[in-house]
Structures are given as structure tokens and as C-alpha cells.
């Protein structure tokens, strides 16, 4: 909420700070994975594997919900966060960056 709310994600009602712990696990995992981008540099590189683990857990849980036909609002919210993580974590086209 400190770093990403409104920048650009306006997914959540402000009450999420009170009821975060009772949200669905895939959503909690996606939020944690995103939050780890805002650790200080030394801790961030140390925790990179953990962040990936959280994201993977979230993806797997979301996939299971979709396959089982049990989509909830939290499923969609998790997909939004995971898509955002994926997009901002990927590299641009190599030719574009190298100027060729």
C-alpha cells in the first residue's frame, strides 16, 4: 500500500490494511512478491528467490482455481498483480536497446 497503491495499482479498498491476513492465499502471495521489489538493494537481491517462490505459488494457486472453475475476485486481483510483475520485470527487445 505504501509504494504501489495508486502507483499505478488502485485494486484495493483502504480496508485491506486491516483485513490483509484473511484474504485468499494466492492474493497474499502475489502482494508479497510485489512488495519485495521495494526492499533495500542488499535485502532485495538476497530475497529474490523468495519473491519468485511467492509469485510461483500465486500463479499455481490461481491456475488451479481457474481449472476447477472456482474463480473469485481474489483470483482476478492476483492475475492483475502477477501480470504487472511480469511486465515490469521483463527486458525490452534486445535489438531496440542495442540501437541496431
Amino acid at each position, binding site marked *: 500500500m505504501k509504494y504501489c497503491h*495508486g*502507483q*499505478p495499482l488502485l485494486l*484495493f479498498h483502504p*480496508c485491506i490494511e486491516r*483485513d490483509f491476513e484473511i484474504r485468499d492465499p494466492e492474493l497474499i502471495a502475489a502482494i508479497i512478491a510485489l512488495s519485495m521489489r521495494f526492499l533495500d538493494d542488499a535485502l532485495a537481491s538476497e530475497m529474490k528467490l523468495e519473491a519468485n517462490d511467492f509469485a510461483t505459488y500465486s500463479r499455481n494457486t490461481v491456475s488451479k482455481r481457474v481449472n476447477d472453475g472456482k474463480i473469485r475476485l481474489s483470483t482476478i486481483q492476483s492475475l*492483475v498483480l502477477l501480470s504487472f510483475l511480469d511486465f*515490469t520485470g521483463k527486458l525490452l527487445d534486445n535489438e531496440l536497446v542495442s540501437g541496431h
Partner: protein
Amino acid sequence: MAAIADLAGVDLGVHGETFHEERRRCNWCIWSFEQTIQPLDYTKNMTRADYIGPLPSSVGMEIPGSMAGRGSQHADNGIVRFLPHLESIWSLAAKYIQDTHEQTYDIPLWKKDSDYTRITARMLEFETVFPPEHRSDRTRPDQYSKEEVRNDWGYWTAWLSTQIIYHTIITLLNHPLPVSARFRSNERFPRTFSQATTDLVMLHSNWTGRLLEMMKEMSCEITDPFLGYCVSVAATVYLHFCQSENPSVREMSEASLANAKRVLRSLSARWPVMSQVVSLQDIYKNCIIMQANV
């Protein structure tokens, strides 16, 4: 994903209004990502539709209390509800750039049926509906203490997004690169139009610079990668004017460029994709210097 997000049949849980609000926000976020962050694909020559879904409320993002109640003839509709409107126009501006790159335009910029003129009209229409309470001449973070801004950060992030996206759309329309790319050597380019685009791009890119400076003075960190992209657009304009023969223009541009680079570097520490935007900036800078030396 947008179709899924219509959420028909989705279990909303038992929390009532909170979940209804989050459903509205989720719907809008997905559409917003398609307009702004998702890589654009106009190969099918499709334009993005205006947002017609349920609008998010401004709960948690109310206009700061000390400014409320000042005499106004307009109801405060909440600032976040205007972001979908602005993002619709953004996607038109992005298509304008794409069409310029692919040379799929045929009407000169200054003519009444051009995409430039249509987007400008949309921006003027936006100005007629945007409440004066949220405009920068009435409400700015430097009117408050740092602590007050931090406490109302939900409002100020929406305010900042609105301001920067607004100025970036006009900067894109009047950017020297697409304007000169669309000039055809066998046509006379109206001098009035040429001067107007230069004035507009300077004014609005400078506004972006002022907003960055304001955030820096308030010790507020910009963490939105899309705003980072907007800052990079302004930075490309500063790069052009760093070559100006006018010393005061050159000095202002160099200062704005330094500030923009600071923000981009800070963002690249959070978002890997931004580190490559910074690399592209260096390539663009070299191109401009080479062009200036020819």
C-alpha cells in the same frame, strides 16, 4: 482478462460494499493496463474503446480536508474517476505515435480532420469536465506540509497521475520527432503551427519537470513505472532543448534532464524494464548530438 473481469458469477464473498468497490477497481485496473502498460499492438488498426465500466470511487483518496469547502460551483466528483477518461485519450496519443512510425497517416497535422486535431479536441473536452478543485492552480502538494501529504498520499498519487498523464499527452502530440517526421518536403508547413507545437511541447514538458521537482521537495517517491515512461518522454524533449542556442532554455533543459534522470534511475532500481528505458535515453541522446553536429 477484461471479459473475465466482468466477474459474472464470481463469488464476491460476504463483505458487501468493500468487495463491490474492489470489483469496480479491478475492472478499471485491467482496462487501464491495456491502455497504458500493456505493449500496444495496432497492427490490426484498432483503436481502444473508451472505458464504459463502473467507475471506481475515491474512498481513501478524498481531496485534502483543509482545501474542501472552498467556494465551488462544481460538485467534487472525486479525482480518480477522471483517470479512465484521460487514459482513453492517452491510447489515442500512443496510436498517433505508432501511426507516425509506420507512416500510416495521410492528413497533415494542422488540418481539421487530422488525428492531431481530434486528440486536441478530446483534451479540451477533458478540461471542460475536470473539476477546478483538482487543478494545479487550486490544489498542489506544496500547499501542505510533508506530513500532511504523506497522510493523504492516496489522493496525491491520483493527482500526480492525472497531472503527468495530461502534460505527457500534449508533449507527445507536439514532440519535435513526430512533428518533423510528418512534415513532407513537398508541402508548406504553416509557420504558426510549427511555432505553436514548439511552444506547447516546451510548456508541457516543463510542467512535468516542475511536478518532479515538487515531489522531490516534498520527499515523495514516484514508484509508478508508467509515470516513469511519461518522465522519459519529457526527458527526450529536454534532450532536444539542451542543444538550443538560447542559453536560458539550454540551462533549464539541462536542469530538468538531470531531475528526470534521477527519477528514471530510482525507478530502474525497482522495475527491471525501466533500466532499459534509461539505456534507450542514452541512445536517443547520442542521436540528437550527432544530428546537431551534422
